[in-house]
């Protein structure tokens, strides 16, 4: 039914255009029914996009190769889960997913905030609709997933590296993150357009930003794990332009989530916060552009396409209009208060913001430099790993330290004497950890040692905060210690959930430092019976086998693994040859030590006809802390995201107090 899919998208475009025009007219003229009609159009656009999506998924599941998109991204032999994931595996489908999530978020954000920010919502709808108009125009006129053809006997199949369970979750999560950043953008622009620059747009968007930020964070971590186990080069993050494209909005959103606290508490940084929201949204568009335009050489660049100029034009218009609005409202955005002292919580958050933004801009420069050099000099000069590593250390290590300092300093002004008292124990813990690590030989990498020391400092501050808070709750009448702890969490989920997220960043820092600064690597060509030794492990090449799976021929080398005198079993590493796609993938062997968090990682680089194999073997200390960090990050984010009914009641009551009664 490609006609139904096409028609549904045309109707979506019509609804989005109507919501834009009618919404703008209603907001400008103050017409209630027209505003409600525009809201209805935005909500209906979600349902029509959902119908188009169902048509596409049904075509994928039926292997209906008369859909050009289905024939290009799947094959008869492709397992069903990956057939479904083809929905976002190609350009047209991923744009449709963008539109689906966008209209869904738009409808939800409008419904959820209508009780206490109705006058603001009126201006938010046309902004949402403008973004939806752009994406629905793309899927209708530029990159339709419903183009048909004479059906071939089979499809071209899916890129082998995408045939991995992580691909079922990694791209949708990134899209949830990218699109989620539209919500704060729409509310910020709605506030600028309407001149309602009170706190409400911040409160309305805080959880959405947190949700988008969580999805982006988890999506990136899943992508890193996918790269680690599937791409088979021995790492998890390669500073690939498309990886960077997801990292940049995440960094800006991180800055916003911190600076928003300064505006809520002190009424400061109002221009800064609006600019961060605009930047985060623009970078999310830029990320989609990089992934889908094929403008950069990346493992993610599966297609070259014609949508690039459209995206660049839209990003240009977005930035120009947004900055114009900020400039227009500048007098109303001026903060009534100023920074009182460079030693205060707001100052620490400001330093954190500057470092996050500096890191983001350094990465952005690394991403656009090859494009600029190609445009100007005709040669794409790629900035290598050392460029990014330098800035990660230069900005990332102070950021790590600030994560421990910021939450413990007083607002407005802190005395040096109180700083000495507050940070006595964390500093002693960090110094002690540093000395112990130095004795254990961690001095081989200074950045690694500094990262561990700072991680110990932050870890100590987090533990101290939980212990003190729980003790205080117990003293205030909690019946038991677990009761005191849960009361502590429940009464300030945002703060203590934030500490859990900080703990996850500590784990991440330890995992990254351990696996990159203290790893070992060995490479050797082995015949059967020969062995290789690395970091106490001995690997003996035992056998080479070939087997057939549903859509690939799998070749596996089996290695016996031992450490000192302990037999640790066997590991398999090899390659898959995908028949339909005519591509070969590396299938790595990984042995994880649950106790130490260390991985033994084996790649069969080259398999020769005589059965000999070139093996590349890594030992990566503490790398599993990175994946554990993902779980802790998710836990902390969920705690922080959990709805706060008291806050909702207070906001509704406050709206009532100024004459915005319950919704009509």
């Amino acid at each position, binding site marked *: 039914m490609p006609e139904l899919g096409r*028609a549904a998208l045309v109707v979506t475009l019509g609804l989005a255009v109507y919501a834009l025009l009618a919404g703008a007219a209603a*907001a400008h003229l103050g017409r209630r029914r027209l505003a409600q009609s525009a809201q209805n159009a935005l909500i209906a656009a979600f349902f029509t996009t959902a119908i188009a999506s169902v048509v596409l998924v049904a075509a994928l599941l039926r292997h209906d190769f008369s859909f050009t998109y289905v024939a290009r991204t799947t094959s008869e032999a492709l397992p069903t889960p990956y057939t479904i994931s083809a929905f976002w595996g190609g350009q047209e489908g991923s744009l449709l997913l963008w539109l689906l999530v966008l209209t869904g978020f738009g409808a939800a954000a409008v419904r959820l905030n209508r009780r206490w920010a109705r006058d603001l919502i009126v201006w938010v709808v046309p902004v949402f609709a403008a973004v939806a108009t752009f994406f629905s125009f793309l899927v209708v006129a530029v990159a339709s997933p419903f183009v048909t053809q004479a059906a071939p006997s089979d499809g071209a199949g899916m890129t082998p590296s995408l045939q991995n369970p992580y691909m079922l979750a990694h791209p949708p999560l990134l899209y949830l993150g990218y699109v989620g950043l539209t919500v704060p953008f729409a509310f910020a622009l709605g506030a600028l357009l309407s001149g309602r620059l009170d706190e409400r747009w911040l409160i309305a968007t805080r959880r959405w930003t947190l949700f988008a930020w969580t999805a982006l964070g988890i999506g990136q971590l899943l992508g890193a794990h996918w790269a680690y186990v599937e791409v088979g080069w021995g790492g998890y993050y390669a500073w690939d332009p498309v990886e960077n494209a997801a990292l940049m909005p995440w960094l800006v959103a991180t800055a916003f989530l911190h600076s928003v606290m300064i505006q809520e*508490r002190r009424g400061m940084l109002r221009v800064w916060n609006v600019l961060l929201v605009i930047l985060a949204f623009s970078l999310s568009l830029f990320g989609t552009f990089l992934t889908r335009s094929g403008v950069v050489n990346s493992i993610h660049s599966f297609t070259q396409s014609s949508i690039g100029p459209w995206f660049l034009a839209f990003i240009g218009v977005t930035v120009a209009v947004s900055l114009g609005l900020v400039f227009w409202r500048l007098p109303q955005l001026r903060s009534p208060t100023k920074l009182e002292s460079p030693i205060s919580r707001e100052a620490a958050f400001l330093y954190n913001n500057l470092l996050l933004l500096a890191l983001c801009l350094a990465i952005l420069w690394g991403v656009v430099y090859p494009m600029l050099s190609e445009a100007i000099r005709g040669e794409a000069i790629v900035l290598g790993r050392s460029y990014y590593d330098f800035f990660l250390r230069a900005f990332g290590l102070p950021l790590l330290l600030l994560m421990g300092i910021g939450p413990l300093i*007083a607002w407005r002004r802190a005395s040096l004497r109180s700083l000495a008292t507050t940070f006595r124990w964390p500093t002693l813990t960090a110094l002690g950890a540093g000395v112990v690590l130095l004795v254990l030989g961690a001095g081989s990498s200074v950045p690694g040692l500094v990262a561990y020391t700072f991680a110990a400092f932050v870890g100590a501050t987090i533990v101290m905060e939980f212990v*003190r*808070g729980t003790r205080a709750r117990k*003293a205030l009448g909690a019946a038991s210690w677990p009761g005191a702890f849960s009361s502590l969490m429940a009464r300030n989920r945002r703060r203590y959930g934030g500490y859990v997220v900080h703990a996850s960043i500590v784990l991440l820092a330890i995992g990254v430092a351990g696996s990159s600064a203290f790893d070992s690597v060995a490479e050797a060509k082995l015949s059967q019976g020969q062995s290789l030794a690395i970091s106490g492990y001995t690997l003996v090449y035992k056998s080479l086998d070939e087997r057939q799976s549903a859509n690939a021929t799998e070749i596996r080398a089996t290695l016996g693994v031992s450490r000192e005198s302990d037999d640790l079993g066997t590991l398999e590493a090899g390659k898959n040859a995908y028949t339909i796609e005519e591509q070969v993938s590396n299938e790595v062997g990984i042995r994880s030590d649950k106790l130490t968090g260390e991985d033994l990682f084996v790649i069969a680089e080259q398999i020769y006809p005589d059965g000999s194999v070139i093996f590349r073997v890594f030992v990566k200390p503490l790398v599993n802390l990175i994946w554990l960090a993902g779980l802790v990050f998710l836990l902390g984010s969920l705690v922080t995201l959990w709805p706060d009914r008291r806050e909702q009641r207070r906001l509704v009551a*406050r709206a009532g107090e*100024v004459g915005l009664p319950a919704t009509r």
Partner: protein
Amino acid sequence: MTIALLLAAALAVACVIVVALPFLSEPDPETDALDELDEDERRRLALLESRDRALSALKELEFDHRTGTITDDDYRGQVGRLRREAAAALQALGPDIRPQRVEAPAEQGRPMGGRT
């Protein structure tokens, strides 16, 4: 194809009805004006935000002082100003606005942990 086109037409009609619903359900409303805040209400909203900001800051300061995260020096430097800010907002709002509950008085007390 015919079924698909019929479904598409039905979809378009349904959307037109949904969009027109506010006009169909209220063809002749008493007022079609949006609920807008006038200058006085906006000033009042700003005061309410200011009140809530000060009360919430006070609540956090009290708890941080109690846990020992904030020292006596820093506590004394801030508590008076925050109380004055909250009082000023409440006074400007008038007598009919009740202050929000911050923390039960029984919960206030000496800080813990010997960091005085």
